[in-house]
């Protein structure tokens, strides 16, 4: 009864004939070598494994691959068009939104979904819809600023406030 499962990842066709209950996260990391998505908790509590499934953010650690059949997955590797960073990723770097980087893939994927839905989110919007991706380093302030800069709601002031060039 279990046919091969096929789906698209970052635009590429993928076929899976392993166990149907394999976690999408493991399929992405182990089989497709797309190691951008991280396992922070394995319980859907941290968002480090966030990917887009038909445009909706989900925790890949909680999605059994057999339910991905016929669907579209976008991972952090698929956000930018080519080797350059996309606008949100660039803003994260410029604004100091990246410290250890563990949350960053999930964070930028989550924010991509937010901006597709709402191109000019307020901080309240970000709090509501990015609350599923936890950061232990930044205290979120520079992540908010990165979103504001990427969406034209704040002018880039530089990651350093002491006058050094950023």
């Amino acid at each position, binding site marked *: 009864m*279990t046919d091969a499962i096929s789906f698209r990842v970052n635009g590429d066709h993928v076929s899976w004939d392993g*166990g*149907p209950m394999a976690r999408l996260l493991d399929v992405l990391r182990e089989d497709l070598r797309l190691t951008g998505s991280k396992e922070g908790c394995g319980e859907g509590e941290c968002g480090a494994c966030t990917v887009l499934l038909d445009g909706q953010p989900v925790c890949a*650690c909680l999605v059994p691959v057999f339910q991905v*059949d016929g669907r579209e997955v976008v991972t952090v590797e698929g956000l930018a068009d080519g080797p350059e960073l996309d606008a949100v990723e660039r803003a994260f770097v410029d604004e100091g939104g990246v410290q250890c980087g563990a949350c960053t893939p999930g964070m930028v994927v989550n924010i991509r979904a937010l901006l597709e839905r709402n191109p000019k989110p307020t901080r309240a919007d970000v709090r509501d819809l990015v*609350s599923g991706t936890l950061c232990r380093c930044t205290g979120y302030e520079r992540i908010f600023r990165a979103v504001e800069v990427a969406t034209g709601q704040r002018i880039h002031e530089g990651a350093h406030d002491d006058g050094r060039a950023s």
Partner: protein
Amino acid sequence: MTVAHRPTGLSDALEAVAAGALPVAGGTDLLVEDHATGRVHDAVVDVLRLPELRGIRVEDDALEVGAASTFFTIREDPLVQEHAPVLADAAATIGAWQMQSRATLGGNIANASPAGDSLPVLLALDAEVVLASRDGGERVVPYVDMHLGYRRTARRPEELIVKVRIPIRPRPHQAFRKVGTREAQAISKVVLAFCAGRDGDSLTDVRLAVGSVAATPVRLRETEALCDGRAPGPALAEEAGRAAEAEIEPIGDVRSTADYRRWVTRRLVRRLLLEAEGAP
């Protein structure tokens, strides 16, 4: 290897369930448990895409919410916002966007955690659960009869939850309150839902349901009776808060102490009755 069924309709799904396949909806409780325990299933059946379990509509004076409706769909749905905004409010507090994209109403019910956030809401809305099985056909269970004990529901192993029906009636007062360690991604220490009608200054048809204070979500019937026919305001708020505190028998556990749960319940009930004063 696990056998995975991906039926396109309910009757095929019910065949698989009758043969012992485990229903998989959003997987947000199931995969956590499987990952923690290493458990492997002989057979699973996807219920997320069954058309009979999807959709939100008004039919025969009831709001019908398909069991496979995700909480994100529920929170955004205009019919839910119109007829049962308390359910939309609850949906918006479950986990966060990633969880709401996958977790379903049916799964929340079937998982039957004492802390399930939608469960007191369904109690307060006088909901009914529609179940189906291959051999038993369709069956309707009033929500008050749904939870039998700790993580035990009236759903038989061969049944699927198909939809929830919420009778539409005037409920100008609707409130959802949840207290946890964070604003998002929190399992509740106390979660409650309040619904009431209004006749002049007085509350009518009061429903007050609370989760995380017992093995199942519970209606506080004595507190409800106290509120029925009375005007919301400081006097009722004080009395009802004390009554609610006395009516529950919470335990202390990893998330909270019994004392804290009692204290929080009193304050939540008191505040929502203060807020209910004046025109709804």
